[in-house]
């Protein structure tokens, strides 16, 4: 709980200093300018708890009165600078065009001067003193506020909630003050804390040079200045104002940090203990390793009772819970489900691509039949040996190809890298191989494309390149995670055709993860429907679509608009009520029960087992016979 201790300390210290400064004249302190030549540089005593300075003045009282000058200058300066800078930044970034020129350019001019020079100039013109210092601070720091605000507003102004406010017909002033300002407040607060700190230091510096607060008025800077020549004889004289400075700056920074978190409604949820994140990585696989199933029964991938856990700040989630599924060579299995169903996690678990530290396989086996007929439990292959399987035996295609392609290398380079990762070959062969891969995935003019970078390709082309890279190692299994979701329908149709063709030609097993039932119908041989981390129904594609047994599968299918729902008569899509439960608060019993029209009291007692409906169809519903 270091976090809170420092915060409490910071708050207490700052309150004390501010109170001390405000109440200094009323407190029974010694007059800060009263000299006592006899008591020069005396150490702490009862009358002078912090000692006396080079003129015998009371240090405690000078710190208290000095806080008035130092804090006063820094705070007024920082607030003035914030008012000016934030306003200019908001206006400049929101209206842009001439407003940007009018607000930001003059500030750039200020920034181009060395700050000290500017300060000297102002002091020469206005004479030294507390007011001059505040003005100088405002002048010096307004541009940094404006820059920070400007940058933040630029990112926020394109958010749709700003457009929504405009669409509602709000005035620009209101949008700026009510909608934009709270969203950029975080960085501005941080900036504020930095400016106050810098202001106190600058005040000290200028006073130290004799350009700031005029003696004998006490300020922390002046105290440092006064104590410096005597620092060997009286180090305490230097230490006290420095301690006050350091602690004040620290306290202000800490409090502004806390304020930023306070203003962010999302942050408050995350202040929960994170210690669980560190708990159990790789521990807990206590179960004895089962022996490999004896004979090769024709399955390529055989997942058995696989469970994967993800640690989140709010607790451990069982993202997939006892999932079993089989893929045969040349078979396309579609994993279908809504977000949070665990379909992507299943793919990542098989590939050992779970987020490091937070995700782990908790239970189960993943049997994979290599080309040499050997069967391996992938769930228990150590990470360093897993590389042998990735690429050569199995490959993955992701939803957003831009994420899997490296933006700084050409397509050719990446293909060659993938090709040579699995065996040496000459440069010429590699280049030819890369070209052939592009031809195989139907990219026109492959020679030219090899020299292009990913950003020069369209979304569909990129996905073809990603598929080509996946094919480089000649894998027996491809896991495709929503590979067409980011694409337009006409391009999606092209990619689906391509995948089907490749799969048929090479006898590749395909796990196709998607939420789109239309796509499932196009590509899948078998369908596995997932809900809340469990398989709730599986079977051949025709049976799932035409004879679904689980109410969730039925609901999902009914949610897709069909010609019967259309036009005139009733115009109503059947929908599943409610939302997917949070993985942190799963309902007892059947996980779909709270949203199910057919739920009975028996449904909430225990999680139903996956039951065989026919030779190849299973469902996880205790009432499937009745409904």
């Amino acid at each position, binding site marked *: 709980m270091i976090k809170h201790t420092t915060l409490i300390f910071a708050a207490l210290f700052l309150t004390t200093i501010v109170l001390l400064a405000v109440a200094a004249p009323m407190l029974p302190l010694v007059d800060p300018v009263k000299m006592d030549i006899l008591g020069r540089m005396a150490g702490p005593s009862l009358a002078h708890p912090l000692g006396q300075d080079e003129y015998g003045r009371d240090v405690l009282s000078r710190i208290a009165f000095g806080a008035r000058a130092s804090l006063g200058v820094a705070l007024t300066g920082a607030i003035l600078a914030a008012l000016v800078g934030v306003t200019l930044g908001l206006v400049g970034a929101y209206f842009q065009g001439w407003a940007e020129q009018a607000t930001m350019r003059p500030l750039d001019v200020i920034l181009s001067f060395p700050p000290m020079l500017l300060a000297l100039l102002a002091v020469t013109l206005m004479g030294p003193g507390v007011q001059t210092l505040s003005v100088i601070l405002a002048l010096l720091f307004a541009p940094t506020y404006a820059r920070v605000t400007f940058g933040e507003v630029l990112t926020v102004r394109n958010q749709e909630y700003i457009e929504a406010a405009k669409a509602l017909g709000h005035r620009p002033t209101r949008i700026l003050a009510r909608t934009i300002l709270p969203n950029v407040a975080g960085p501005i607060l941080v900036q504020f804390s930095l400016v106050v700190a810098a202001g106190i230091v600058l005040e000290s510096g200028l006073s130290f040079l004799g350009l700031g607060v005029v003696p004998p008025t006490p300020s922390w800077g002046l105290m440092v200045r006064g104590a410096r020549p005597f620092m060997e004889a009286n180090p305490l004289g230097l230490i006290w104002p420095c301690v006050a400075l350091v602690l004040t700056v620290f306290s202000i920074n800490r409090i502004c940090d806390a304020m930023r978190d306070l203003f962010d*409604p999302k942050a408050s949820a995350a202040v929960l203990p994170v210690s669980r994140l560190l708990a159990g990585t790789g521990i807990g696989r206590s179960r004895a390793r089962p022996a490999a199933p004896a004979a090769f029964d024709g399955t390529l991938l055989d997942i058995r009772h696989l469970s994967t856990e993800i640690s989140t700040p709010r607790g451990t989630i069982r993202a997939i819970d006892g999932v079993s599924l089989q893929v045969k060579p040349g078979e396309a299995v579609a994993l279908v489900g809504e977000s949070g169903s665990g379909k992507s996690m299943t793919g990542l678990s098989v590939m050992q691509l779970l987020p490091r530290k937070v995700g782990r396989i908790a239970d189960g086996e993943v049997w994979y039949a290599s080309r040499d007929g050997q069967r391996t439990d992938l769930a228990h292959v150590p990470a360093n040996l897993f590389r042998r399987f990735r690429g050569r035996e199995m490959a993955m295609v992701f939803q957003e190809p831009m994420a899997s392609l490296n933006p700084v290398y050409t397509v050719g380079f990446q293909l060659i890298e993938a090709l040579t990762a699995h065996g040496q070959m000459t440069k010429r062969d590699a280049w030819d191989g890369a070209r052939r891969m592009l031809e195989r995935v139907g990219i026109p003019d492959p020679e030219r494309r090899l020299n292009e970078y990913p950003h020069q390709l369209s979304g569909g082309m990129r996905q073809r390149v990603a598929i080509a890279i996946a094919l480089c190692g000649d894998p027996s299994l491809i896991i495709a995670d929503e590979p067409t979701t980011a694409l337009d*329908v006409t391009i999606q149709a092209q990619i689906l055709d391509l995948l089907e063709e490749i799969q048929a030609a090479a006898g590749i097993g395909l796990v196709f993860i998607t939420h789109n039932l239309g796509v499932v119908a196009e590509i899948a041989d078998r369908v596995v429907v997932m809900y809340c981390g469990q398989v709730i129904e599986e079977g051949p594609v025709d049976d799932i679509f035409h004879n679904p047994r689980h109410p969730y599968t039925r609901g999902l299918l009914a949610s897709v608009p069909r010609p019967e729902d259309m036009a005139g008569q009733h115009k109503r899509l059947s929908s599943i009520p409610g939302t997917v439960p949070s993985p942190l608060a799963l309902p007892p019993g059947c996980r779909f029960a709270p949203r199910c029209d057919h739920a009975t009291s028996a449904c909430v007692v225990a999680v139903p087992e996956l039951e065989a409906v026919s030779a190849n169809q299973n469902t996880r519903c205790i009432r499937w016979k009745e409904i």
Partner: protein
Amino acid sequence: MTEAILEVTNLRKHYTSTRGLFSRGSAPVKAVDDVSFSIAPGEVLGLVGESGSGKSTVGRTVLRLHEPTSGTIRFGGEDITKAPAGRMRELRREMQIVFQDPFGSLNPRSRVSEIIGEALDLLGSLPRDQKRDRVVDLLQQVGLSGDHLRRFPHEFSGGQRQRLGIARALAVRPKLIVADEPVAALDVSIQAQIMNLLVDLQREIGVAMLFISHDLGLVEFIADRVMVMYLGRIVEVAPARDIYANPRHPYTKALLSAAPVADPRLAKRRERILLQGELPSPANPPSGCTFRTRCPFALPECAGERPAYRKVADQHFHACIRDDIAGGEEVREVMALAT
């Protein structure tokens, strides 16, 4: 026919890229290129197209969230193309937008009561408790409840946020709602909930709607008429039932045949028209018919003039010169499209 609530004539929106020091001479991106249409009060007009077709730009330009390059926009008979900012603010209350992204379109720093209350304030200030009641009414109308008042957007699921977005749009009692891919970011089962909500609300309050989507099934479900856009232009417009049963333009046909059908038997039987290649750059569109580079029926003549609209039936128009395939009679009057 009753007077249209929204009437758009020859709308163009070109973006000039100003990036880079020396790129002043670059060609403008013709996001919307001469588009005309109208929406009757209480009508739902569907706008379908792929990404880059300019469909979202149309939605934002008719609300003047983006300024049109040329053309006229009439709202309730009033020409709003050049309406000053003050008048526009008043008018915006009668035309609302529901966005695609339920995460980005709600101010993350505001509570529900503020998000919807803010919209209510625009109708004039209400006493505190009345305002609160009205907010609760609106929440209930979209299937949420008064318990949600004090919450922040991030505490809601995607579908619930989209409900909030709809409640906010309804708060000002609009006559027109532009719904820009309102369910694209949602799960299938939640999509259906929101679609039903939109249909119910639309019927209940009789608001006109421009429903923008790339999903033909959803548009077919909700729309009275459907427009198909390709590269900034409308290639076909027809009553919903007509366009699905009897598509005329090769692009519409290809689009319909590319859409996956949630029926494995049907999927294996049917012949798909596979389009070659991808959408050309709107900065440098093909001459004549912009679809000709991917069209399986293109002729040399397609590269010539921009195709004129042809009428095939009442309210059914398309822009393809292959009369042997698409049929119809050429129409000269642009506004004929609107009726």
